[in-house]
Structure formats: structure tokens, C-alpha cells
């Protein structure tokens, strides 16, 4: 089954004519993702190696039936692009762009809550459903199809965990990067809910980090609603308060958002927390009986 993206995905890429946009759109396409369109205002009618480019999302949807959007435009244009995709009725928007102003994210989040569109990201590596579709910048070659669902705030760390699992013989249903920004469009809880309902997924790996209280909320949710085993990892035990550790959202404010508090919250609800990425993989292997 996988979650969010699969063989039915028809992808439209905003910013497809930019250097990075072209590279990753083609990369996703070569993986097998059905990339049906690109959007770049003023370049409607052109194409990028056979992928037709439209001036607006509405045109792209009308002409191609696109049902997932990937946003790859610079930060100052990203909020507008997400809102345009939602306005065009696209139910899933995946925003890779890093560095979007926080107030833009707040306005977009609040508005999308009132529409039928789900946002994944911003500042995320995208989603990979191995063997089905890859939307974003996750290097797909390290992952194979399997029964472990991964949801993560960070990119490279996710690859690391996924790769360790793959070396232990396990594959993934889907890998969902929700991004490292203060206001992610999709939360741990949202994705865990999807994995819980997904036939293919037998184990859920949650990769969190310092800042905010998304992991604590997820712990409560897991205790109440999740029957599948969950293994967690939290990065940032050594992060000092008040410093932004790379991700805009990764900051300990006063005594809030520490890795210790998050790990304790998860363990209090019966979620096993690995202290290193290797340990996470080991716990997963133990649970799945590899």
C-alpha cells in the first residue's frame, strides 16, 4: 500500500525550470514516479525533457490531472506556490524549499487547515515509497520495499537510519520527511495515523529532534491510537539551549523542547527509544525478528 504517494501519483513540479527543480524532477521521473507536469509562470508551452510546463497550477491540473505537487521554488516564492497548488485543488503538496519565513508558514498552515489540501514540509526531503514513487530528494538507491514506515524531521539522518535497516535486511513501506521547520504542514501524528492504517507497514520508526513538542504529542497519540510497534530516535541531546541547530525548528527554548524530555515522554508511553541510529536499527531488527 505505502502512504501518501504510490503508483497513482501524478506529480506536478513547481520550479521545474530551475536548476535544482529540473535535476530532481528528472531524478524522480527516472525512479518511476509519474511526473506529468511542471509549473513556471511565463514558460507555459515549453517542456523539460518531455514534461510539459504550464503557467499555472490550474492549467497543469486541468491538462494532466496532476494530484501531487512538489514545490521547489526559492523561499520568498514558496508560500505563494503552495497556496496556488491548494487553490488548484491538489490534495497533497510536498514542499522541499528551506528557509521560508515563519509567518508565511503560519498563514499557509492556517489556511490549509480550512481546505482539503495536505502539506508535507516545508524544508523536507520529500517522500519515498520504495518501488512505487519518489517525490523529493531522498536518494532512493539506499532503500528497498518493505514493512518499516519511517517518519522524520531530518533528511540525512533518515537516510542513515533507512540504510542501516536495509543493511539488516529490512525495507520500507514509505519514508516521509516532515521537515525541520517550526510549522510543518504535516505532523508526526498525521503520518503515524497513516502508517497505522497502512497494510504494508508493520513497524513505525519516528525520528525526532530537539525543539517544539511534536514528539511529546506523538507519544500521547501513540499510546492511545497505535497498535503497531514504534521505535524512536531523538537527535540533539548535546544541543545547548537557545541555539538553532541547523533546522529552523531545532532549538531548545529555555527548558522546553529538550531531547531528554522527548525521549522520556516517548518511553513513558512505552515507545522504545534508540540512543544512536545504530541502536534504532537494532531495536527494529529485534522487534521484527530479523
Amino acid at each position, binding site marked *: 500500500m505505502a502512504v501518501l504517494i504510490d503508483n497513482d501519483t501524478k506529480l506536478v513540479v513547481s520550479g521545474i525550470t530551475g536548476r535544482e527543480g529540473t535535476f530532481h524532477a528528472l531524478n524522480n521521473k527516472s525512479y518511476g514516479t509519474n511526473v506529468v507536469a511542471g509549473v513556471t509562470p511565463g514558460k507555459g508551452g515549453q517542456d523539460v525533457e518531455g514534461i510539459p510546463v504550464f503557467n499555472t497550477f490550474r492549467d497543469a491540473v486541468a491538462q494532466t490531472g496532476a494530484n501531487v505537487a512538489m514545490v521547489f521554488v526559492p523561499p520568498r516564492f514558496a508560500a505563494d506556490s503552495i497556496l496556488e497548488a491548494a487553490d488548484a485543488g491538489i490534495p497533497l503538496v510536498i514542499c522541499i524549499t528551506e528557509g521560508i519565513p515563519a509567518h508565511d508558514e503560519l498563514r499557509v498552515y492556517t489556511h490549509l487547515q480550512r481546505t482539503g489540501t495536505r502539506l508535507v514540509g516545508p524544508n523536507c526531503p520529500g517522500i519515498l515509497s520504495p518501488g512505487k514513487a519518489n517525490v523529493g530528494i531522498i536518494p532512493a538507491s539506499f532503500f528497498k520495499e518493505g514493512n518499516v514506515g519511517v517518519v522524520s524531521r531530518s533528511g540525512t*539522518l533518515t537516510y542513515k537510519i533507512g540504510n542501516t535497516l536495509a543493511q539488516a535486511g529490512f525495507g520500507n513501506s514509505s519514508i516521509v520527511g516532515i521537515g525541520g521547520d517550526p510549522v510543518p504542514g504535516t505532523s508526526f501524528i498525521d503520518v503515524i495515523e497513516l502508517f497505522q492504517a497502512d497494510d504494508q507497514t508493520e513497524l513505525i520508526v519516528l525520528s525526532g529532534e530537539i525543539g517544539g513538542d511534536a514528539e511529546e504529542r506523538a507519544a500521547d497519540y501513540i499510546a492511545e491510537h497505535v497498535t503497531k510497534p514504534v521505535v524512536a530516535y531523538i537527535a540533539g541531546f548535546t544541543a545547548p539551549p537557545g541555539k538553532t541547530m541547523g533546522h529552523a525548528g531545532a532549538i531548545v527554548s529555555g527548558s522546553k523542547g529538550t531531547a531528554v524530555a522527548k525521549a522520556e515522554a516517548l518511553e513513558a508511553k512505552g515507545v522504545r527509544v534508540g*540512543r544512536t541510529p545504530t541502536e534504532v536499527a537494532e531495536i527494529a531488527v529485534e522487534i521484527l525478528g530479523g
Partner: protein
Amino acid sequence: MDLLEYQGKQLFARHGIPVPDGRPARTVDEAVAAAKEIGFPCAVKAQVKIGGRGKAGGIKIANDEDEARAASDAILGMDIKGFTVHEVWIETAAPQIESEYYASIVFDRGAKAPLIMLSTQGGMDIEEVADSNPDAIATLHVDPLLGFQDFHGRRLAFEAGIDADLVRPVGAFLHQLYGTFIAEEALLVEVNPLIVTPERKVAALDAKVTLDDNALFRHPDNANLRDPSDEDPQEQMAHERGLTYVKLDGDIGILGNGAGLVMSTLDVVAHYGGAPANFLDAGGGSKAEAITSAVEVILSDDKVKAVLFNIFGGITRCDEVANGLIEAFKTLDPKVPFVVRLDGTNDVEGRKILADASLPNVHTAATMDEAAQKVVALAKGEAA
């Protein structure tokens, strides 16, 4: 980006929020001139991005020119909790104060909405109030699309127990504070104390403002408030090179790609008894040049006794990283040992490039744990 008190007050003033009149000064002479312009008595206030400066002697009242000179001479250059005072703010001495309130707006990530807080327990550390007497703080989330409504001000003021005659002016103050928060794209605006004068007027006697770095492109005036002299020299160097670097207290330099992986690397190093000297994310798609540049930043911290490279290649290619390291060795000739762990895209090529180059004192590792253990040993002067 955190603003200094006076920068925050100037921002407030632009949005109509009442603040005492004042002038900034970087030298004693400037300070004395400013004091004469402002009139006596005036306050001489250290401008540092840390709380508790009052207790540390960073705020003095001057009743005449001599006192202004003495006060600014004492304060300029003072060290407050590790922050050197480069600037003072000369301000009309606080008018008679009847009450001290607290008001703030924070970007509440959990609720995904601005959170306004108001309390009559001003002048104290609000976290202490929150612990000891949480009912003394009235709180309210504002719908970001609806914005601040008059009733928000009334609700907060009545719930905080503010005198009836001040409900309207305090509400208006909060409305302006919210306007500032939104217009300037702040992550925090805090006024402590928000004072009430005998004339029943309100004003901001302090200002703490944190702006969103990601939004500075829309606020060029605010972007100019960044003061590089305030920053740690390594952080400044990294900032200029577009690298994400955070200075830490230890002696093991760390370089990785991706914020989560770097945080994780710090944790694993600490797990094995080491003390990281920094967080450095070379970013996605790091090219050789960026790696060289990053090594230079790490080594400019002379506390560093060993360096750990932990790369998981995705967009970043391990061969590029290896080449960057070789280039760094050529130009920088480092004297400390390196441990390099390359995994992911082109890892085989990268490892081969390193092996062929046989750089002096560069060790490799197959796993993150092994790499961490090695670098901890090397930093302690032991064999890897």
C-alpha cells in the same frame, strides 16, 4: 536574530508603541553627549543580548554629566555573563512608576498561532511567575488569519486582573504590540516591565525582540541591525561562508551534512565520552570548495584537538567530500588528527580517493559509532 533593547524600542516606536526617549552610544563621549541631549536624570543601560544586566551593574542612573560619564565609563566594556558591552543606551530616567506589568507575544509552534501573555507581575522573570503563580498570567492565541481583535485585549486585561480604567489602554498597547509582531515578522516581542505612570499612561520600559532570520529579506532595515562584532568569530566566519555553524564548548571539531545527522553525530561523540567543539552542517549537495571552507572554520577554533567528518551521501557525493578534504590539507596543513567516515553516494570512490592521498593523521571508520570512538580517543591524545 535577537535585537538589543534599544533596537527593539526603536522598532516599537515606529509602530506607535510608547517608549521612553533615548539615544545609543558606543563611547563615553557619545554617551555623555547623549545624556545632555536627553536631560537628567537619565538611565545608562548596557546593551547586551542576555538578561540580568541590572543585577550585574549594567544599569545606572545619572543625575548630572559627571555621573553620566562615570556610569558609561563603568558599563562600556563590562563583561555580563560572557557578553562584552559594546554599546549603552541613554534613556530618560523612568518616570514615576505605579505598576509594572508584563506583556509578550511568542510564535507558538505547538499551537501554530501567536500566543499573547499578559500579567500584572511585571519586572520579574516570567518563567518564575509561570512556575509559582500560573494564574497570574493571562494567555490567548490569536488566529493568524483573523488577527488581533479588540476583545482579545479586553479578555486578556480582565483575566489578568488589570484595573478597569487601564483595560482600554492596555488593550490598545497589546494591539500595537501584535501589529509590530506581524509587521516585523518577529518570533518574540516581550515588554518587561510594561509600566503604568501616575497619569495612568502605559509605556514599554524594556524591549526584547527576536526576528525571523528567514524573513529579513523583506525587512532590509532590520537586516542591517545585525552586528557582526557581537558574534563569535567562528560563527561570523561560517556565516560569511554560508555554513550553518554553532560554537560549542568542547575540543572535537565536527563536520557533517544535514542538521539531523550532525546533531546525531554530536550526541554519539558525547555518548562515547567526547566533547564536541561545534555543530557544522556543510549542507545538502556539499561541493569540495564548501568542505575546504568548513575545515578552515573548524580549525580556526584553537581549542579543537581532533576533527570528525561524518558524511552520509545523498545529494552530497562522497568523492567530492574527499577531494575537499585533500584540498583543505594542502592549503591549511592541519596539525590535529581527523577521523573520516564516508557512507552513501559514491562512498567507495571517496574512500579510494582518501586512501590514495594518504593524508597525514587521517583515520577512517566504517560506522558512526566506530568513528566517534576513534575521534574521542584521538582528542584525548590516545591512539585511534
